[in-house]
């Protein structure tokens, strides 16, 4: 009886086991700081559009705040879970991600022309959001398990690269170029820190450079809207009321901010100039209201988050735990950088949201769960220190 129970418990503990160590307060504070600023800015940036579209200024902030509260609970719960359990989640997550990515392709389109969302009635979510954590966990687990063979075994190398490619391709098929690029870069980072032979990266680098050059020269090769965005990025005078509208308005907003900004709530560009200011372009409104100083503080907070996550990973005695923590913070850092590149017209306009800021309940929930996982790794390091 007891044995049976113990067996059952052991089985259960593979998936759920409690952590005893203290979480990393610095990381937690940075997360909470970003979340708080993000929520305030979401309200400021989004109320005008919310009023215009839903006749309810608090439409976005109310939902986002609710998800933030739930997300914080989830984060704290996740931080309590022994990160070793995440190994068992890795395969489940991998399978589930793959399944959802396939399912979303056959489901009816939520927005015409795009297959990114699964509609569950009250909420919608993007399978690619789940796939991101799925791929982080999977590669962290796989690279730990096949670390040696990753270095020498061509079959394993090809398999892993194939999986990474398949995920990116699936997201691309959703008509989601930015998601695919993000997925690919994330896989590359995971395989890089996981120990894949460096020649692959050199080869990959060459292919990527050639690919980007090809696309810049011939944007037509991509699907229509994607190609146009590249054209619009290259030609600053291209279709100012259409393809470049959002970017131009974003630049106007950022520029208007100057050093110290127009003041919180004082953005003018959010009033129907910057399209969907609560979403991917929220940072333009942040720049307009808080100025260069405010924007820099926020960027530094993001950088600190990445750095602190890196420190947590370095302290972790487990290869898997370190890889998970690094993967998560690098993913957040990467997404932040790409988002800022887009709003500042440093790269073509693609739909990449800004973590903690952009509107999106399920993705905020996922983000906070991921933050919880990093905190879970921090608790484990805390124990090993003792």
């Amino acid at each position, binding site marked *: 009886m007891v044995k049976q129970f113990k067996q059952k418990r052991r089985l259960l503990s593979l998936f759920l086991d409690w952590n005893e160590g203290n979480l990393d307060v610095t990381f937690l504070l940075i997360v909470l700081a970003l979340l708080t600023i993000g929520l305030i800015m979401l309200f400021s940036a989004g109320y005008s559009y919310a009023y215009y579209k839903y006749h309810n200024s608090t439409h976005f902030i109310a939902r986002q705040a609710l998800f933030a509260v739930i997300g914080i609970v989830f984060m704290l719960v996740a931080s309590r879970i022994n990160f070793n359990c995440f190994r068992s989640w890795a395969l489940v997550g991998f399978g589930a991600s793959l399944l959802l990515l396939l399912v979303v392709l056959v489901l009816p389109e939520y927005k015409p022309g795009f297959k990114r969302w699964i509609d569950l009635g009250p909420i919608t979510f993007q399978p690619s959001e789940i796939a991101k954590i799925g791929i982080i966990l999977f590669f962290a687990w796989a690279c730990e398990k096949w670390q040696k063979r990753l270095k020498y075994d061509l079959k394993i190398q090809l398999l892993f690269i194939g999986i990474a490619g398949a995920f990116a391709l699936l997201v691309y098929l959703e008509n989601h170029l930015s998601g695919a690029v993000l997925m690919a870069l994330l896989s590359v980072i995971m395989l890089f820190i996981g*120990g894949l032979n460096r020649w692959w990266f050199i080869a990959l680098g060459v292919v990527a450079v050639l690919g980007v050059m090809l696309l810049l020269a011939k944007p037509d090769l991509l699907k229509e809207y994607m190609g146009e965005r590249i054209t619009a990025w290259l030609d600053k005078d291209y279709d100012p009321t259409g393809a470049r509208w959002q970017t131009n308005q974003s630049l106007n907003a950022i*520029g208007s*901010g*100057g050093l110290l900004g127009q003041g919180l709530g004082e953005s003018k560009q959010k*009033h*129907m100039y910057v399209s969907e200011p609560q979403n991917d372009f929220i940072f333009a409104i942040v*720049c307009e209201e808080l100025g260069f100083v405010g924007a820099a503080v926020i960027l530094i907070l993001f950088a600190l988050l990445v750095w602190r996550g890196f420190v947590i*990973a370095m302290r972790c005695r487990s290869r*898997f735990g370190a890889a998970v923590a690094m993967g998560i913070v690098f993913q957040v850092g990467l997404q932040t950088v790409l988002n800022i590149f887009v709003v500042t017209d440093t790269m073509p306009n693609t739909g990449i949201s800004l973590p903690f800021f952009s509107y999106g309940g399920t993705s905020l929930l996922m983000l906070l769960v991921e933050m919880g996982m990093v905190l879970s790794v921090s608790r484990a390091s805390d124990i090993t220190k003792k």
Partner: protein
Amino acid sequence: MALKPSKMMYKRALGVLAVLVILGFGTGLVRLAKLQLIDGEMYRAKAEAQQLGDSSIQALRGTIYDRNMRPLAQSATAWKVFIDPSNIKNEKIAKMSGDEAQAALQVRRELVADGLSKILGVDKEEILKKAEKEKSGYQKIKSEVDLEEKQQVSEFIADNKLYDCIGIEPDTKRYYPFKTLASTIIGFTGTDDMGVEGLEHKYDDDLTGIPGRIISAKNGAMGSMPIEYTASYEAQQGTSLVLTIDETIQSLLEKELSKVYASSQANAAYGLVMDVKTGAILAMSNQPDYDLNEPYTIQDADVLAKIDKITDPAEKNQAVSTARQAQWRNRTISDTYEPGSVFKVITLASALEEGVVTESTRYTCVGGIQVADNYIKCHKHAGHGTQTLQQGLMNSCNPFFITVGQKLGAEKFFNYFEAFGFTEPTGIDLSGEAVPKAGATYHSRENFGISQLSSCSFGQTFQVSPIQMITAIAAIANGGKLMRPYVVAKKLDGDGNVIEETQPYVRRQVVSEQTARKVVDMMEAVVSDGTGRNANVAGYHVAGKTGTSQKIGAGNGKYIASFACVAPGDDPEIAILITVDEPVGQVNGGQLAAPVAAALVEGIMNYLGVEPEYSEKESRLIEIAAPSLVNSTVSAAQAVAKANGFSVKVVGDGDHVVKQVPAYGQLMPQKGVIILYTDSRAEETVQVPDLTGMRLSAVQKIANEYGLNLKIAGNAFTGADILSYSQDIEKDTVVKYGTVVTVSFKSYSGVSDSIYG
């Protein structure tokens, strides 16, 4: 069981971190610094340009008032209706594609064009054409839309939910309440509210206000913001002008001018009334003129008929354009003419001032005079005989005035010609004043020989503008002081405060007060018993001079009849110049222009409240009160009326008078007729007979027979051959018994001052 992280993993992770932070966050920060700190101003300007709705509020143009603050030109708020062709497609159409969308779009365009065309009276095809300019966001449909039409457009928009594609914005509209009144002085504005002609053009900068602005925040969806960010700068109304023109006098002048213009079949008739003491123009007109509200419409029926006959379109356009220019032209300042005998007044004043002639100077006219190689005839071929200076003026004797000019000498004559201002513009505050040119409009000093001197002495062989002539005449009436004429008395700001007032300006003293007085007295004799007798106005001593001149170079039979006068003679207040250009038939100034001046003097003196002083002869024009006859028996009433000099007409079979017309106490002409009703029937009516072309006694008799009262106007007592020439109530008009008909008389002999008539 867990593997420890390898060194390679740390190294590689550090690499990723470095790339992410330095390349990623670093680049981001650099980009932000560039956008916000270096290019910030540029982007802020771009953003503000689109965020701020800057709509201008049109400023009302200043008003133009007459001297009694009656508005002659006025701006009122109106509206401008425009469409936004790029927004005619609604959401429904936006979702359609291809032909279906095009068809649906066309239906909506038709709806817009049809509706607006019906309300605004704009051609539907024209609106449709504008609606098809898909890329345009603004196409004006009509400006100066009034309130009623604007409200209809608003309803049309609301009924059909056309909010995005039809717009209404404020505009102003210029009204000229008196239509043709003073049209050549006032001028008009173009569609853009800019002055095109006359004072509207000359004072455009003053009249134009400063447009106001409303700067408001607007959102990217072209809506107003939930939060108010509005700053407004009020429009400043333009400066208003108060003219010296008097609406009453001006309309009187225009009425009389248009009558003589019509009856004489002349090319044009023009006239001026000036305040002699200040140089202020009280009225100024040339007929035909035009309606300021429709400046492009040709007003003159004859001209229009001529244009209609032209078949070639280019030629027709040219003719229309010429006719427009002609009707807009202020001939009283822009045209020049030969002053003829009116100018003798100037010769006289100059010679008197220089002492080369006196009141006792005599001259015997034998019907002509030899000047160099020419024998110049007098208009009275038999000769005027021996005349005093005054008689010479009364007879308008040419040989007499040639000798007066010759006594003065070329040098001195020219000095006075200059001094009276005939070699320079008067400087009136209107644009388009004719500029005299030596050798062209007048003989230059170098070329001023005996022939020139002699012809100029009686006003021939040179030209002056009407404004120059009246200014010179007014100088004589003003004790010799030559004034600068003006029409703008005051400028007022938007609140009605005076910001500038024109001060009368004395250009110079041309002749002494004594000389001026003598000349006016002689001019009075011209009217009381000379060629100017038709300018006689009972009760006022009019002093004037007739003129009839041949137009230089216009071919034979083209004359100008004119008359200049000042009144009242003992202390002149106004000067009048009437000129009839190319009359047909009767061409004498004393015949054509003098009666016009008389009518004006009478009207103006009455209006100005100058008390008449009747001579004995004229005292029969004084109106007296009707006696009380009601309730008396018919015979008693008849007796009373007769005792008072009235005749009676009895209507009805009763014994007692129940009603009398005119009523008791009402002023009526002497020897008038009183209608006595003996029962309570309605007042009887009568058809007015033709009362023109008759002697006064005949007119009086017929009037009494018809039961009409006669009011005598014009020259009914001075000179011979006095006949009635016009009546204020047209013949065959049905009027009540006892109605007063004004009949004007003039003398048909002794008024000729030329050989032409």
